[in-house]
């Protein structure tokens, strides 16, 4: 059972299938003043498991990895975003080209692929949290940004 780290900063969910990468991201974000909780995205359960995790912990934002097969992974993310509207997503991916083809014209987002700069993740999280503070009750404004 994932347990949030101690501290007083905004809680950030780290969702990635690579345990090693999850550990690096957690260390980095905690050094930068965030609290973290991680889901090493096990594929069993898909959107349902991810939603249960997000609803249990109610993070202010999620650092979310879109992985191959990118179309299916993107569809799961869309379903998660549709049903969990309380937070923001910062998206990481190893294939910006495939993800770009999934993104609709209404979602003009910048895509920068892995291996990413840890400082960039922190900057992006601070930017979206400052621009759109999370609400207590879900309203239709969750932000999507991709790194």
């Amino acid at each position: 059972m994932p347990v949030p780290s101690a501290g007083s900063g905004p809680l950030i969910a780290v969702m990635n299938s690579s345990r090693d990468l999850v550990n690096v991201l957690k260390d980095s974000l905690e050094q930068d003043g965030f609290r973290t909780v991680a889901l090493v995205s096990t594929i069993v359960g898909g959107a349902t498991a991810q939603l249960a995790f997000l609803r249990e912990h109610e993070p202010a934002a999620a650092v979310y990895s879109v992985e191959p097969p990118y179309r299916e992974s993107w569809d799961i993310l869309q379903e998660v975003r549709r049903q969990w509207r309380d937070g923001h997503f910062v998206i990481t991916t190893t294939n910006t080209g495939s993800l770009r083809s999934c993104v609709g014209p209404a979602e003009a987002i910048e895509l920068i692929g892995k291996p990413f700069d840890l400082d960039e993740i922190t900057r992006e999280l601070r930017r979206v949290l400052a621009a759109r503070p999370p609400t207590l009750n879900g309203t239709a404004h969750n932000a999507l940004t991709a790194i």
Partner: protein
Amino acid sequence: MTITSDRSTDTHTDDGLPPGSPVPAPIARKQHGHDVPEAVRQQNMLIAVAAHDMKNQLGVIRGTAQLIERHMRRAQAPEPERILSGLATIQTGTRKLQRLMEAFMDVARVQSGEPVEFNRRPTNLVALTRGCVQEYAQTTSHELTLSTTGESLIGLWDATRLERVVENLLSNAIKYSAPATAIQITIAQEPADAGDVAVLRVEDQGVGIPAADLPHIFQPFYRGSNVAQQTSGTGIGLFGARALVEQQGGTLRLESTAGVGTTLTLRLPLAG
């Protein structure tokens, strides 16, 4: 109903065909709206997966280096233990990256019909498996249990590639079963027609594989219909694992019941 998939039997082969049957012609499938020959689609997928896995490892290496740099800049008294731990992570990351590259080169060789050059030497399957189990136990909530009849089971195998196969079986069991469920790993020596064999079984309580998918489950990139839309798994693992096992004189057998779980059984000839 439990379905058995075993290339070595006459009646229940995993590709649904008697041994020696020709492989069916690949079917062209849509990719980004275009008809793409199956072989090309598979190759594209292989490249995408290789890039994904390698970039993830590069992310770990780069990120850890950044964390060390940050610590050196920010800490008034840098902690040597922390720096050494980070350097160890980087070294492990580079080893994993190297293993990934070797694994994908093997898959490419197998796919193109080229033989793999094995480095066979006395290898202890028990010690090798225990190392893999211990590594995975550090990063999963699953209950991994290893049972063996002895501390040593030695055969003339390629240790690096055998480790890759064992890792593949373990990672599949973890990937396709819910967190905190049990995964049982057993190792034994069993008699066979051509002499004793080493047997490794990995049994999970996961989603299992629908019967209709079993004839295809060892094909490259194939994934079960009950997970294909939900997983980031690529399906290359079982294909590559079986090829490496068979080219060392062994077999890889799969039994699965959808909704109950899967057992993969690896058999390898022991040194005489």
